[in-house]
């Protein structure tokens, strides 16, 4: 059966060049980067190279990149690290209602520990209004954490504007850049973020590797203490193979970002236009907002998302409803709820996310099979009347 993968916001296939880079670590260059002998020093120099590739991708200094086990750890490190280091100054945190669970549940956990969190709403198109962040500021605010691009609907938040507000107020600013990195240009200097999370497996690298950009001078309490790795910010013997793969993926993402994403945007637009013309009663969530070039989230009336996902899967097409981690739960997505969708509407939503490796044939295949699937499910619905 033909297999088409349009679930790149969940994870991406690992590029062959990344696999090759990792293989050399797993076989020859197995040394512990902390060891002073050749094996160790070679591994260390490979990590230094990877750090440079990751730093360049977001215009950071090499010393500002802390490798982590992924996006979730980077988010936890940023938020808990500031909460802990700044608690003498205050206990108020500002975030949005559409954050990934890694931020959402971390902030909820801090609420239980006595921190106060302001949850900024978003527009019907899924965008935070920067001025509402300004209005939420208090003398005891210690952190603003707002994601750069949303994983479910792909909307891009006004990070640069919020960055200016944070700088004026002298409040630490973290942004979850897991979905934006590798898909749009990211420049941490321009964005004026102090902390920025990245994950390797969303940019064709391996799972279990990621990084937190920590602006020079930022005081952050480590999550992991031990041998003092990563300049005392994150102890533990490095996941060398993962980091090397991540570095290679970052290098490739940077080299071809502009051309890859122009092509991806064209395919995404082709997909959206074709589906809108071939299927009645569908809407694109976040359509009028600035969006990632690779993501489309469509709401299909008179059909249910999980039924669509399973039907597509049986035709070899992988997509998702809401975010991958909440599939299997029947609660409507908090992101779709935040943009004003009813639980019913939210349950009829479908996320299709492309990557640099998506082909025109992939998209054309989905355009060919999806209308029939929707039609079949609608014919089963007691509410759908053919016009």
């Amino acid at each position, binding site marked *: 059966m033909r297999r088409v993968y349009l679930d790149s916001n969940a994870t991406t296939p690992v590029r062959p060049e990344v696999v090759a880079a990792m293989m050399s670590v797993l076989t020859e260059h197995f040394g512990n980067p902390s060891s002073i002998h050749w094996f160790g020093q070679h591994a260390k120099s490979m990590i230094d190279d990877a750090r440079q590739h990751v730093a360049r991708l977001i215009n950071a200094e090499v010393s500002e990149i802390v490798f982590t086990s992924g996006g979730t750890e980077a988010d936890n490190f940023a938020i808990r690290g500031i909460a802990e280091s700044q608690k003498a100054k205050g206990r108020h945190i500002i975030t949005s209602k559409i954050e990934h669970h890694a931020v959402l549940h971390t902030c909820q956990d801090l609420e239980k520990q006595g921190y106060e969190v302001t949850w900024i709403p978003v527009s019907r198109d899924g965008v935070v209004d920067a001025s509402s962040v300004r209005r939420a500021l208090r003398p005891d605010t210690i952190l603003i954490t707002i994601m750069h691009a949303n994983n479910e609907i792909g909307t891009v938040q006004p990070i640069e504007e919020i960055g200016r507000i944070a700088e004026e107020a002298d409040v630490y600013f973290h942004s979850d850049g897991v979905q934006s990195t590798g898909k749009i240009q990211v420049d941490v200097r321009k964005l004026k973020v102090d902390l920025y999370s990245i994950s390797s497996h969303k940019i064709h690298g391996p799972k279990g590797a990621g990084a937190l950009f920590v602006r020079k001078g930022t005081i952050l309490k480590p999550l992991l203490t031990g041998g003092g790795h990563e300049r005392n910010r994150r102890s533990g013997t490095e996941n060398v193979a993962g980091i090397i793969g991540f570095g290679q993926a970052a290098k490739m993402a940077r080299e071809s970002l502009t051309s890859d994403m122009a092509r991806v945007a064209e395919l995404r637009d082709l997909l959206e236009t074709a589906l809108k013309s071939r299927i009645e009663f569908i809407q694109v969530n976040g359509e009028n907002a600035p969006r990632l070039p690779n993501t489309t989230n469509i709401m299909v009336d008179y059909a*249910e998302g999980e039924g669509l996902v399973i039907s597509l899967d049986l035709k070899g097409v992988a997509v998702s409803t809401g975010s991958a981690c909440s599939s299997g739960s029947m609660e409507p997505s908090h992101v779709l709820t935040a943009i004003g969708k009813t639980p019913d509407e939210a349950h009829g939503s479908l996320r299709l996310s492309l990557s640099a490796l998506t082909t025109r044939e992939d998209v054309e295949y989905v355009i060919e099979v999806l209308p029939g699937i929707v039609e079949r499910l609608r014919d*089963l619905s007691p*509410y759908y009347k053919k016009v």
Partner: protein
Amino acid sequence: MAYSEKLLDYFQNPRCVGEIPEADAVAEVSNPVCGDVMKLWVKVDGGHIQDAKFKAQGCSAAIATSSFATEMLVGMEIERARLITKEEIAEALGGLPASKIHCSVLATDAIKQVLREFQPR
């Protein structure tokens, strides 16, 4: 795939889909959490269910269990139909993942509601 072949078959090729214009009873139920709906039509003859049809807007498990349960009803004694449980349906379809057990409740709720119209004599 988290579902059995049989369940997928009932999802892909649901039996007993449709409406019965001259139905003796109709029930419409929905799951308050996920919003999925099932509508069930039955025609009875003496103590038996002569015909049953359904429509559903829901996940694959909801559609498959609704279809399977409706098919079970056809020809069944009303008193036996009252005894149908969600476990019976789920087991017959090769079991459901834990998070999907509630989907089969849609069918048993619809059966309960539609049979409410026929008091035991």
